[in-house]
């Protein structure tokens, strides 16, 4: 239920930012964080109900991609999915932990960037 904490951050942001009122908001969830969407959506709805916030949030899962700072090679979540359950659980909590467990598949460097699909963010017009 760490998804609840992430949902709290989303709802708190909506509460604090007048700019977000009456906006269509996409809650972008990075593939890397492997958020349980059902649990996350439930938490968002419960928190909105408790705080009497009526706003339409659309959850969008963003594919992850990575780029090696050493050789420039770009790679996908396939490398992360090769890791064991415990390692993926740790990436779920702190997405940067991907750098403890994954290496560039081409040059084996540990120095790579998460280009997209890291964690939770809000997108609005």
């Amino acid at each position, binding site marked *: *239920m760490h998804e609840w904490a992430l949902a709290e951050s989303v709802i*708190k942001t909506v509460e604090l930012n007048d700019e977000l009122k009456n906006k269509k908001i996409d809650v972008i969830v990075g593939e890397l964080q492997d958020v349980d969407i059902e649990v996350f959506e439930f938490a968002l709805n419960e928190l909105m109900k408790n705080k009497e916030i009526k706003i339409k949030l659309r959850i969008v899962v963003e594919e992850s991609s990575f780029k090696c700072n050493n050789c420039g090679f770009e790679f996908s979540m396939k490398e992360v999915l090769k890791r064991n359950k415990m390692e993926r659980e740790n990436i779920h909590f702190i997405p940067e932990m991907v750098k403890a467990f994954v290496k560039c598949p081409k040059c084996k460097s540990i120095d790579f960037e998460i280009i997209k699909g890291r964690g939770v963010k*809000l*997108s*609005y017009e």
Partner: protein
Amino acid sequence: MNKILDPRESVISDRLKNVGKIILISGFKGGIGKSVVSVMTALSLSRKGYNVALLDLDVTSSTDDIILGAKNLYPTEDKGLIPPVFEGIKFMSFNFFSMSKPFAIRGSSVVDAIKELLCVTIWGKLDFLIVDMPPGFGDTFFEIMRLFKKFRVVSLYTPSPLSKKIVNKMIPLIKDKNIEIVKIENMSKESGKAKLIYDPELDKSIGNVKKLEKTLLYNDVVKNLNIITGEKL
């Protein structure tokens, strides 16, 4: 083009709202004993009956778990991450997640990792949160100044003129009405007010709390707790 917001920051102050006082153990130079003093401060406050947490923010070189001899700890999940308790201290470290594997990341990733941890950690009610800071005045320090807003900095230095010079140069950069600062000499030639003695036997106690508590350094940390915390304990 759509605007993007990072929601994590909005909830960090909520996570810290029941924390009495945040104390950063810093000092800007490496190897001046920040981690050992952080651990001993948390330990001595815990022994005095305070609700205390220890957060190891030396993201890529966390060692507080090694100093404490705290093995096989992991947070539990309950609407966030609940830090494990060791020797009465709520303890959070990136080592729990890296499984003690080398964890080397660039500055922007350090900031992201810290924000993530602070967003999801449920500290509960605390008298003190002791934060072991990494060396230098870099990404972590800037981010913590922005996110925590009100805290005390214990700026350690050693008798080395290099260490003193850096501390005196850096302290003016963090002058703010919401930030308390105190300088404490570590690895000092003598014990005293705002002085923590150099203890040649310290390394033999690493990883063993009972031995840590018998060291000359621990004794000095206990004697200097009012100066470290800025409170009359």
